[in-house]
């Protein structure tokens, strides 16, 4: 390799790696609270934890209940999974993941990828009868189990 090419390549590589490192430090700073924020919402919504407890905002008629319902916390070998649903006029209007598999970095990555896909699928299907996300089987199963508990609590 010619000297000019070698020096330029070394400088360019160093620059790219440094830029990556810099933006990575930024991500690491905001990255972990992603799951923290999810658990934070559980306390603000006033749910009483595991076991399908519901905080109903509206009247409370079983079939037409409106409000938020929290599913059971499902333990997996990658961490616990727990979801909360928001129901309005008998339809699921939102699904929030309170806790997701976060045992290690890999699990966090998988969870972050799977959660939005599962949420979208559940909102579309309006049930827990949705496909498992490939590459996130454990997370999906736990997510849907917890979701089913929440649906049961909401009598949906």
């Amino acid at each position, binding site marked *: 390799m010619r000297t000019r090419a070698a020096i330029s*390549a070394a400088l*360019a590589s160093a620059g*790219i790696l440094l830029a990556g490192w810099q933006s*990575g*430090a930024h991500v690491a700073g905001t990255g972990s609270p992603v799951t923290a924020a999810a658990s934070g919402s559980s306390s603000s919504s006033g749910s009483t934890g595991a076991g399908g407890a519901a905080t109903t905002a509206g009247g409370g008629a079983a079939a037409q209940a409106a409000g938020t319902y929290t599913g059971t916390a499902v333990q997996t070998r990658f961490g616990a999974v727990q979801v909360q649903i928001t129901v309005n006029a008998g339809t699921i209007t939102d699904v929030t993941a309170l806790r997701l598999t976060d045992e290690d*970095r890999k699990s966090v990555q998988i969870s972050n*990828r799977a959660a939005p896909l599962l949420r979208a699928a559940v909102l579309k299907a309006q049930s827990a009868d949705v496909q498992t996300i490939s*590459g996130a089987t454990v997370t999906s199963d736990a997510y849907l189990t917890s979701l089913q508990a929440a649906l049961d609590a909401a009598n949906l």
Partner: protein
Amino acid sequence: MNSSSRLTMPATTRRTPVEGFRSQARSRLLRADLLTVLAWSSVSLAVALWLADGGASGFSTLAGSFTALGIVAGLAGMDLVLLMLLLAARIPLIDGAVGHDRALGFHRKLGKPSLYLLLAHGILLAIGYGMAEGLNPVAELVALWVQVPDMWLAIVSLGLFVAVVATSLVAVRRRLPYEFWYAVHLLTYAAVLTAIPHQFSAGGLFAEGTWQRWYWLAICIFTGAALVHYRVLEPLVATFRHQLSVSRVVPVAPGVVSIELAGRHVDELSGHGGRFFIWRFLSPGAWWHPHPFSLSAEPAWSDASGHGTLRITVRNLGRGSAQLSRLKVGTRVAIEGPYGLFSTAARTRSRVVMIGAGIGITPLRALLERTPFEPGQATVLLRGHSDADLYLGDEILALCRKRGATLYHLTGPRSAG
């Protein structure tokens, strides 16, 4: 050398002064350097993708460290594999800057490092994930194969990579017929394709919605498109456009024949004398033999639509070349190319020395026709065991005479030792 005769030819034709070779050389070196920088930058960018995702935080635990190193090895390994594919894709920008032979030389040099990186990727992740889950690496590999979608493909891919690199080792390759090596080498495409799914499905780095995913997709698609375009489409287009067929087979010396080919638009191939094409003679039993031969005469055409002839000169060296002396007139020919840098494009100054030995003399014959030089500024050295081995020597002599080049014949057996 036993004998050396010097034949200085009188200048008979005057040509326009030759300029611009120095700037041509400067710009070619600049392109080569830029490509080098681009290649290494792509490797660091692959690692930077992971750093930008906060990957370095994995080093806080032992298991995480194994996993982190494994991911980095995989990213760098895949990037090198893509670089290897690009180097072998016959991209004119690359071949024109460093030459086809040096591009393939880099390709070969990257073979083992990329395999080691991919092996390290598999092993380190098996250890890292295994430690995180309390499994031994082998059990972890089994778990990955069974439980995680696309992972079995990735493990198969690794096996294919091992097979490809093992058959390409010089010691092994020498014992195998070219065609067997080539067939195994085609498995590279299977190896790369089976490696891709897990990168997007199992790897969190390229999860949906990340910019890293777009970048990675882009470089994979770019590489695939370059391969399809330059290695499949362009040869097909050239073959259909030029409609070449064998028009004459002329014996030149024992075991050496000149093959003349007639076709259309041969004017477009002008100026490529000395460069090589990959020829496939489309007759039963021979069509799957690719032959790399240089032109031994510049294309000659008679009308505006470029109907004309090309010529290659071939020595009976292997099984494939032996068949060529028995080629029938009218055999259709598929071509790829022109490839290589043995042409005016490689020149760096107005003076030129051309050296050829044995059958390697024949590309000089074509180069001498067209490459610009003034009388007295070119020297040609031909080397062979005897005068009979200076193939096309008469034609070269005539050309040197016409253009005012100095011709040396170096004949005789090799010196001992």
